[in-house]
């Protein structure tokens, strides 16, 4: 009973975006990012994994009902059916690449879940591409 358990909850959100770096002008962004410099959208799938030892009374690493509410508040409300560039403050300077979107989400969740709980996320941009960020406790 000593090995930690990893529990994962997934959510899906749909956002529009365009790759734009503050270091490049419009032509430079087009050249660097191609079609991704035009406004487009994705159905993102986010898998959030917490690990730990099940509480001896509840048998839970984390109460999934609480995690569901947390993800609704921290992620869905910020990103679902929003424009990542214009409706959120995170991508004014850096482009919303899957690496950067995952990094922003990881930082938001790292603040929101208990500091001692190891956190990992996997962000699927589409069926063919995903980003993993694995952290330890804060």
């Amino acid at each position, binding site marked *: 009973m000593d090995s930690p358990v990893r529990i994962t909850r997934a959510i899906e959100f749909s956002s529009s975006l365009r790759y734009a770096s503050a270091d490049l002008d419009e032509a430079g962004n087009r050249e660097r990012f191609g079609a991704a410099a035009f406004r487009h959208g994705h159905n993102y799938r986010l898998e959030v994994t917490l690990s730990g030892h099940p509480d001896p009374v509840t048998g839970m690493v984390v109460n999934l009902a609480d995690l569901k509410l947390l993800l609704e508040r921290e992620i869905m409300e910020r990103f679902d059916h929003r424009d990542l560039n214009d409706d959120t403050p995170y991508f004014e300077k850096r482009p*919303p690449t899957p690496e950067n979107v995952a990094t922003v989400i990881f930082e938001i969740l790292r603040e929101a879940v208990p500091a001692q709980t190891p956190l990992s996320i996997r962000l699927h941009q589409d069926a063919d591409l995903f980003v993993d960020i694995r952290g330890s406790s804060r």
Partner: protein
Amino acid sequence: MIELTRRYAFPAAHVLRSESLDERENERIFGKCANANGHGHNYGVEVTVSGRVEPVSGQILPPSELDRIFEQVVMEPFSHRMLNEASAFNGIVPTAENIALVLQELLAPEIERRTNAELSRVRVIETSRNSCEVGEFR
């Protein structure tokens, strides 16, 4: 720790039999997979790279660059081919394990030479029920 994974697929034929075994032993070990005329799979491949997220592009690497490498290194020699006849499998039984190892060996130096990323893992999905992974695990 941040990683990007891209999924690819190619159809190919193979036979599982070892030249160092006689007919009976091949049949015994590989069963229906030893059928001399071969059989085939839609192979799925997940290529995972890690590295620094370059600040201007917001990317570990441009996915299109990984696509080009995969096209040249994997699709050209193996897609719509008999794997046993490919030079990379000379003397190597093309099991999912060996395919993963061969792809790792072919992809790692090209990714290192042509991008700022490095190969973390290769996962070969032979069928929806069988897959094999090589590389770093955390």
